[in-house]
């Protein structure tokens, strides 16, 4: 590992000022960054440790929103009473990720900014447009069983690894960040981006920006929400496909619905087309299935990941039927 300096600022102003130094990186729990440094993918000159900042609180706002500080640990947030009661999907997405030890270390800000688990990105002996722009993407013709089926580009078929971010996308959450120029606010949908011809950029965050908080708007019917994840083993593995869903029922009809898919794209995939198809319609398995088929028409699977299309359909339909109590 390359040598680096270490700073532990106590104020956010100092933290963003330090981040202006060339080769600096923010350090949250380190569960992704330290790993990537060992692999030689990240070679920072300076680590700016965020865990001394006053950003570790979960606060209920006057308008009913929940403001989650960026250094709140994944495990603390998953066990938070307000999160469990008001947004079950969020708590479930957190406990579906990684392991008990990793969740104790991981911060929510770091979780949002963790890098893809694409094997070519993690291996410095291979080409990768995300790691070295213009070097090529061997994944298309190579190992891509767990890579994207939606929204990919010629340049990159990586997937976003975070479970938490999928739930946040369904909940229309916001991201607040700070740079030396001032505060920036983005919705989670605007925060993550599709790879296009700039796969080196995971997000639309300005360079050097410090994520300070995530805000989950009030959504009373999110009490009827769930996260379901399918992986190669029962636990301690990234998603093949995951689904975050919330449903507002009006008798046997869908008054409103939120649906996001994980493991299928470079960003959490908000299934807006399926949501539109479902809104105002019957809460039946047929309707759920048709809506998902419509959403997944856009899928462009590769030879080894075609199974994800049916899997995403099935997992989403199952999640919706369970949430709405429709007999399967």
């Amino acid at each position, binding site marked *: 590992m390359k040598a680096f300096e*270490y700073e532990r600022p106590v104020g956010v102003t100092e933290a963003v000022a330090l981040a202006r130094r060339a080769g600096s990186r923010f350090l949250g729990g380190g569960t992704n960054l330290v790993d990537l440094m060992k692999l030689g993918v990240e070679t920072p000159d300076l680590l700016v440790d965020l865990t001394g900042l006053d950003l570790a609180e979960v606060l209920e706002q006057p308008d009913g929103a929940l403001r989650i500080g960026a250094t709140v640990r994944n495990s603390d947030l998953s066990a938070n009473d307000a999160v469990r009661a008001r947004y079950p999907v969020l708590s479930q997405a957190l406990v579906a990720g990684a392991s008990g030890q990793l969740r104790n270390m991981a911060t929510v800000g770091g979780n949002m900014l963790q890098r893809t688990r694409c094997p070519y990105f993690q291996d410095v002996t291979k080409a990768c447009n995300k790691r070295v722009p213009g070097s090529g993407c061997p994944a298309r013709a190579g190992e891509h069983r767990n890579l994207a089926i939606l929204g990919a580009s010629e340049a990159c078929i990586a997937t976003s690894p975070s479970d938490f971010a999928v739930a946040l996308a369904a909940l229309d959450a916001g991201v607040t960040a700070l740079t030396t120029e001032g505060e920036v606010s983005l919705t989670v949908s605007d925060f993550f981006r599709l790879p296009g011809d700039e796969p080196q950029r995971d997000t639309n965050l300005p360079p050097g920006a410090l994520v300070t908080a995530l805000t989950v708007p009030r959504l009373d019917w999110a009490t009827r929400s769930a996260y379901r994840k399918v992986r190669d083993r029962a636990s301690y593995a990234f998603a093949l496909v995951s689904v975050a869903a919330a449903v507002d029922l009006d008798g046997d009809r869908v008054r409103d619905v939120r649906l996001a898919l994980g493991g299928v794209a470079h960003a959490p995939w908000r299934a807006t087309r399926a949501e539109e198809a479902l809104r105002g319609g019957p809460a039946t398995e047929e309707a759920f299935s048709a809506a998902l088929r419509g959403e997944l028409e856009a899928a462009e699977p590769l030879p080894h990941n075609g199974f994800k299309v049916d899997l995403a359909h099935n997992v989403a339909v199952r999640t919706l039927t369970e949430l709405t109590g429709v007999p399967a």
Partner: protein
Amino acid sequence: MARMSLDLTVNGERRKVDVDTRTTVLDLLREQLGLTGSKKGCDHGQCGACTVLVAGRRVLGCLVLAVTLEGAEVTTVEGLADGDDLHPVQRAFLDADAFQCGYCTPGQLCSAVGMLREVGEGWPSVVTPPGATVSVSSLGPDEVRERMSGNLCRCGAYVNIVPAVLAARR
């Protein structure tokens, strides 16, 4: 090469050390403090062999940089027993024969201690039914398997590890 000096408590003892900023707490324990109980399996957060407790919370020593632990209280497998009195989790592992080669065991022990504390605080897991509350006394094998999933055992001693953890709850 950047070095920093660091004050921390390891198994109840104050330690002052000088570390390269690249040093993980696992390497600090093993290479500088002579505490070789914590094991290096993968060095990438994928096996749990390096699990230690920081302020009572289980973490992975291989991904924690030592410099982040200024003033922290670290407990390793060497610090679980009270003198010659084994920790109940250690006793239970012996009684249930919850290991074969023993390489994963220090991590399993520290993880189980941290995990039982999490359950005591009512933390849910992914197998906890929505809205349900968990308690140490009501913990079942499925919960133990899920909550201990961050500790791999190449020998496959899980069939005895799960009963050992359940037995250690007293």
